[in-house]
């Protein structure tokens, strides 16, 4: 009994101490309070239309806890709030389960579907089923070449090859000779296209490096050892914003002079561009992909409007350098860029 009481006292003391530290150590910058102030400044999500409350579902090939898709979702939710839409979201990185998810939304008779086509062949049949059930489909992010053939209304995204080519040209502009393209998701066709596109336009030599994107320490040590073993590398291109920061750390550890450039954007990348630790970023505006997908479905349901004239609606590439970084810092913080 005595032991139990003593333990109770210890726990109480620890809790009291923790609370004390939390109260005494208030931060005057950043944190939740700053975030709430920012949110208060931006518009509140109220419907701006009087159309019926339709249900749209988005199914992507995202893994668990992916920053990029989080921003896509933010855009979609913002548009859904404006357009009086009930928005559902599902994702699975495995092609088969992604198509099962689409099927289960068809079973629910949603009013519109938004699908990413990273693995087009796996989604073909289920999208045909959606159309048979009279559900309009818009494809986002990847699969531009398959979108029209599958009978989707429009495709919203970035042509990965074009984006890669933009990177290659930017590297030429910066006088780089030997670049490293870091692929963080083995088996992703879009990633391969990015590196291949960069290789096509880049006048120097480009090498590919595969890393385990779900394991950051592994990403860092892989890039590090590559930079140590090949001192000639003067540019590292990462394919996702979270990996840019890691590449910077790896470069510092390896004592390399390489410039770090990246696809996509997040708060760290914006800061990195501003302070010069990163060269440039190529953004595909994920917020726009989510926002436009929901909005275009709404336009189709409301007014039979279709955007793109049978061609993909491109949201990128947008090359971002030091001069744009300041404005984007604020937007990345609120999770819309």
């Amino acid at each position, binding site marked *: 009994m005595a032991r139990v009481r003593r333990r109770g006292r210890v726990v109480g003391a620890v809790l009291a101490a923790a609370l004390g530290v939390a109260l005494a150590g208030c931060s005057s910058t950043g944190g939740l309070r700053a975030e709430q102030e920012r949110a208060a400044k931006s518009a509140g999500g109220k419907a701006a239309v009087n159309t019926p409350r339709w249900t749209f579902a988005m199914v992507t090939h995202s893994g*668990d806890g992916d920053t990029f898709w989080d921003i896509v979702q933010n855009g979609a939710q913002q548009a859904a709030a404006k357009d009086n839409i009930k928005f*559902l*979201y*599902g*994702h699975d990185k*495995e*092609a*088969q*389960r992604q*198509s*099962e*998810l689409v*099927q*289960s*939304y*068809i*079973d*629910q*008779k949603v009013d519109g579907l938004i699908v990413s086509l990273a*693995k087009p*062949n*796996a989604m*073909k*049949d289920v999208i045909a089923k959606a159309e048979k059930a009279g559900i309009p489909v818009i494809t986002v992010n990847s699969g531009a070449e398959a979108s029209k053939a599958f009978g989707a209304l429009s495709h919203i995204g970035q042509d990965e090859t074009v984006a890669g080519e933009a990177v290659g040209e930017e590297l030429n502009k910066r006088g780089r000779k030997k670049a490293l393209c870091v692929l963080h*998701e*083995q*088996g*992703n*066709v879009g990633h*391969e296209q990015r590196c291949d596109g960069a290789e096509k336009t880049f006048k120097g030599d480009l090498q590919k490096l*595969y890393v385990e994107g779900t394991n950051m320490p592994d990403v860092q040590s892989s890039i590090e050892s590559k930079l140590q073993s090949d001192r000639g590398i003067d540019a590292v291109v990462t394919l996702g914003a979270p990996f840019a920061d890691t590449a910077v750390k790896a470069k510092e550890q390896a004592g390399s002079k390489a410039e770090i450039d990246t696809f996509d954007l997040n708060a760290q990348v914006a800061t990195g561009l501003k302070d010069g630790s990163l060269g440039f970023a190529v953004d595909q505006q994920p917020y726009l992909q989510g926002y436009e997908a929901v909005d275009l479905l709404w336009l189709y349901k409301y007014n039979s409007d279709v955007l793109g004239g049978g061609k993909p609606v491109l949201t990128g590439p947008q090359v971002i350098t030091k001069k744009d970084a300041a404005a984007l810092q604020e937007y990345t913080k609120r999770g819309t860029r």
Partner: protein
Amino acid sequence: MSDTDAPPLQPAGPPAKSDGDERLLHRSLARRLMGRPELGSVVGAAAVFVFFSIVAEPFLQASSLSTVLYASSTIGIMAVPVALLMIGGEFDLSAGVMVVSSALISSMFSYQLTANTWVGVGVSLLVTLAIGAFNGLLLTRTKLPSFIITLGTFFMLTGLNLGFTKLIDGTVSTKSIADMEGFDSARKVFASHLTLGSVDIQITILWWLALVAVATWILLRTRVGNWIFAVGGNADAARAVGVPVTKTKIGLYMGVAFAAWVSGQHLLFSYDAIQSGDGVGNEFLYIIAAAVGGCLMTGGFGSAIGAAVGAFIFGMASKGIVYAQWNPDWYKFFLGAMLLLATLLNAWVRKRAEEKA
């Protein structure tokens, strides 16, 4: 699932005649039911089914149930041999990527040799069975735990999948074989669906049921079934009484390989192109299905029907969460919690059964 077969390890006799005292017979039936490994999972499945019927409005539609059954079958086909393997006291962590390996071999062999797709299917069967035999041989020769052996195979296959695909195709996914001879007939076998009224019944569901039936027959009605229980219960004792332990274990691994081949061909013929990076992590789903279905981690106890029910629970949960329109972020938490609950329920039911027996 009122399976009134004689309990394992007893010679199969004729069913008891219902003459004499009916109460006696009735009690023994109840007692036999209590002793079945899958009882706990059946109770769990009923609970999950009722739960989602209440919280998810579209769940009870025929089309939704066929989606649930399809999702269950893709896990279930693999869960059957994995359950047998677990009853035999071993694990296979390479089962998930082996499915994708099998599909890749089939696709690339057909494409590169411009052969009829059935040639690729046949070669894939041989190679996949060889991978299974390799697992089993390594296990019985080295006496290392199966966890280590198959972890090694898992990594090797993951690397081979990607390495070979890049080497041969130049990209990370295979080229389309949909326009080749034999594709359509193979699709009929591995990836077609029957339409009953307005409902699609995927052929994988039939494969799944057939595998469950065969595995149940092997376990309960054949000598091999007794061997599987024996090597899982106590391998040394089994060897002492003349059970071919090595052969049994290699056979069990080849059983997993066979099912991986079926699943792999399904992937290939329903989606045509295969992503070399898929399949990682699925091995745990198969183990979850088998464990929820009453297979003991220590071997010697379990059933194929239980594994099927386990896969069905998994299918209901994974799709039920979507039908209920919950946030999918919590899905894995739910899955883990369900696994723990189902296994606890199993343990409790088994304890009750042992007390009564």
